[in-house]
């Protein structure tokens, strides 16, 4: 098959006036994206009164005192541990649920694939927060309120359809012959899945794990409703709490914001390819 030439190829481009207009618009948009964040970083090194006087002034010193103080006062240590627990349980539940269902929907070997596809397609489009009230009372009844692991699983279930369809696209790329060959050699479905298929789709699993991790780390509605006790707060809720109790000390808020932003940006830069691939494959129509 002759490969189609796509826009991914680089081309020589004349540097016209239009080119420079385009570049300046792109740079302006980048500036808008980063402006509030840059301002926060700048002010995180300043004292409360310095920020009040002029948010654009340069800090007198670049000490990490604000960060250390904010980390302790905001109890970010427990917050991040809770976030990690919650995200881990969401990733485990989400990856198990989406990879198994993604395989079933991709192979279409049982008749239930059609109603299941329709169900999960519908579940993408239903405003899930409307089902939160019974979930809340179920959590109270089962004494799961404040249980970060349980909330992590709930977040995974809420966000299940997108990972399922994403996994499905990865399973579709697995050559069918490979599976048949293993079957002839006497492997059962479990072996086929774990020994033959999973190694091939493992990049897809990492991508799905990244996307689920992003959802659950940033989740607000379920965590704020189901984690009522402060000891169970995730990092995002700790920061929200800090904003409520320390709203008069701007240096604490700024340092707290930097503490929230930096880990996320670092993880993103590290796994950038996976995040972008996941988002694009989840939404782009072939």
């Amino acid at each position, binding site marked *: 098959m002759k490969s189609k030439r796509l826009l991914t190829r680089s081309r020589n481009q004349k540097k016209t006036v239009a080119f420079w207009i385009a570049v300046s618009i792109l740079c302006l*948009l980048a500036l808008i994206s*980063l402006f509030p964040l840059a301002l926060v970083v700048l002010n995180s090194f300043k004292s409360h009164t310095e920020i009040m006087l002029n948010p654009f002034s340069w800090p007198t010193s670049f000490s990490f005192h604000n960060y250390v103080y904010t980390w302790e006062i905001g109890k970010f240590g427990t917050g991040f541990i809770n976030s990690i627990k919650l995200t881990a349980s969401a990733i485990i539940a989400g990856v198990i649920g989406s990879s198994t269902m993604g395989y079933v929907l991709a192979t279409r070997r049982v008749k239930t694939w059609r109603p299941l596809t329709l169900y999960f397609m*519908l579940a993408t489009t239903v405003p899930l927060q409307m*089902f939160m009230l019974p979930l809340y009372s179920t959590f109270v009844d089962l004494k799961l309120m404040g249980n970060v692991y349980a909330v992590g699983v709930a977040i995974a*279930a809420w966000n299940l359809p997108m990972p399922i369809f994403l996994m499905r696209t990865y399973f579709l790329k697995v050559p069918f012959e490979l599976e048949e060959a293993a079957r002839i050699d006497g492997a059962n479905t479990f072996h086929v899945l774990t020994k033959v298929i999973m190694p091939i789709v493992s990049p897809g699993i990492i991508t799905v794990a990244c996307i689920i991790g*992003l959802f659950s780390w940033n989740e607000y509605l379920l965590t704020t409703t189901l984690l009522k006790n402060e000891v169970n707060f995730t990092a995002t809720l700790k920061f929200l709490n800090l904003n409520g109790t320390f709203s008069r000390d701007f240096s604490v808020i700024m340092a707290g914001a930097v503490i929230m932003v930096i880990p996320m940006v670092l993880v993103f830069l590290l796994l950038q390819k996976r995040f972008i691939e996941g988002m694009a494959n989840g939404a782009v129509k072939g």
Partner: protein
Amino acid sequence: MVRTRKRKDVRERKLAYHLLSLPAIFLSGSIVLLPAIQTIFASFTKWNGISKAKVWIGLQNYQEIFHDWVFWKSLTNNIKWTILFVTVPVIIAMLASVFIAHYRIGHKTFQAIYLIPYLLAPTTNAIIWLNIIFSPNAGLVGFLQRAGWQITSPLGNMSTALLGVAMVDIWHYWGFLTVIFLAALRQTPLDQLESAQLDGANGWKLFFKIYLPNILPTVSLMIVLIVIYSFMTYDYIYLLTQGGPAHSTEVLSTYAYSLAFSAFKFGKAAAVSLSMGLIGSVAAYFYTWLSRKEAIE
């Protein structure tokens, strides 16, 4: 002998596939489907969410919200929100992605920068904007005030609050759309583009004749998703204004949430939620219709 073995094999495989469906069915069934059925039931009852007693009152909750001005205010705000979101971020993202794809500049750098706000938690973004932009003390607004500008935080004014909240949400969201559009644009056949350029097509012509038709399926899918999400929107509104001042930024989800968890009217909240779902389901129908081709046929 061989035949019975084969039949047993097929049975084993079928069973295995049904077993593989179980984790997702269990997860979604217990946390989405079961609460969904309970919500539908609750909307016909008077229930405070805590006690076991649910009193069946028929359509009374629906009648109540029909005569409730806050419900209509919320619905209007959801519609305004939808109109804002299917235009502003879509146009910005289209512009940015076409520029990047056409001129082949800083593909990775711009994409990464634009995506950063999207990756941050709504709580983080909301607190950042409340303090460093909108605050009359420490923020940009306060700085400009002291410099003599006639400017106040848009969130404090009933007529601009919704726009203020939408501004923050759009700031965080449009980069995601850019990444999606860019991925779709990279599928543009180069031959088409080159022959159009040889014919002397200008920028507008290239956009409407080549780029737009190529990414149109993706754009329409995203617009349908935006409509659905606009009727579910909650985080930024609740974090920035809690629906205020005086319900001016109230949307269906914040209204349902405060009915349930502040007023403890779970039945009425369920009715509001279901009305929200009913409207969203029209968009959902189009979503299923658009993506059906790929997943089912």
